[in-house]
């Protein structure tokens, strides 16, 4: 499938209908998740602030998913010199930065009433997610700072590959270090620790956020394909 989508014509034909369909699926899943989440009873410890979980946790999941996509596409672009992979990496970065930013701000808004602090520098989970945000910004800044587009892409892709090491650090930070952030409660041995009344809306919102990322990612790759086509056509017109 991926080799078929490497063909630009096939990719544009596929993404033309896949992006809006994913967008509609995302809207339905997020709507259902938030409906159930907002109607869920207050948690016995967190009270009503549990409502923040349904937007904070999916944003954090998709931030990591976006970085995995950025890293994977960067690897394919570096090793196979594939233009579509480079476009995919470039397209994932601003979306990943936005989801990470949302995760950081909503987490801070949850932390203030629960921990009594907006931010805790000693917390490994918080700091590693901040590093993820800086990696997205660094990738975009590095690409933009080098005039030669190909050289800028190579430099940014190497940074993206180095930054992949941060993903397991984020995932296991709550196990490797003592943190204020609660431990793993979904994908853990013995099954999820969450009551189904919270787990179901969280999973629906998580699937919806992922579908939204997929839709937006495909559309941004399409925009990048058109940008490159326009750039090469402009050059051809100028030389004619």
């Amino acid at each position: 499938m991926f080799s078929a989508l490497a063909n630009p014509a096939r990719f544009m034909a596929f993404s033309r209908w896949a992006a809006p369909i994913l967008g509609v699926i995302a809207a339905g899943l997020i709507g259902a998740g938030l409906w159930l989440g907002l109607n869920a009873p207050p948690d016995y410890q967190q009270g009503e602030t549990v409502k923040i979980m349904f937007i904070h946790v999916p944003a954090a999941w998709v931030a990591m998913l976006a970085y995995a996509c950025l890293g994977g596409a960067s690897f394919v672009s570096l090793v196979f010199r594939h233009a579509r992979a480079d476009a995919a990496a470039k397209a994932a970065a601003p979306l990943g930065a936005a989801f990470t930013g949302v995760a950081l701000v909503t987490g801070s808004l949850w932390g203030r009433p629960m921990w009594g602090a907006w931010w805790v520098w000693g917390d490994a989970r918080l700091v590693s997610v901040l590093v993820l945000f800086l990696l997205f910004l660094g990738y975009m800044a590095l690409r933009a700072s080098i005039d030669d587009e190909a050289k800028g892409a190579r430099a940014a892709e190497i940074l993206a590959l180095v930054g992949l090491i941060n993903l397991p650090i984020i995932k296991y930070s709550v196990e490797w270090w003592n943190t204020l952030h609660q431990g793993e409660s979904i994908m853990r041995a013995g099954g999820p620790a969450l009551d189904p009344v919270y787990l179901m809306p969280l999973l629906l919102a998580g699937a919806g956020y992922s579908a939204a990322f997929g839709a937006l990612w495909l559309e941004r790759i399409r925009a990048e394909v058109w940008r490159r086509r326009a750039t090469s056509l402009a050059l051809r017109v100028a030389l004619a």
Partner: protein
Amino acid sequence: MTLEALSAGKYAAYIWPAYAVSLLGFAWMIIDTLARARRWKRKADRLEGEGEP
């Protein structure tokens, strides 16, 4: 949705800003993505037309 579901009690000052930030984040991503795609498609189409003999 019931009004009870929308009442966040003493934590409303934290909950609704969190939802507003998420909404703004999504709004930016959708608007920027669609505007970018539309702009470059239009430009590519125009240049393709200019390049034709």
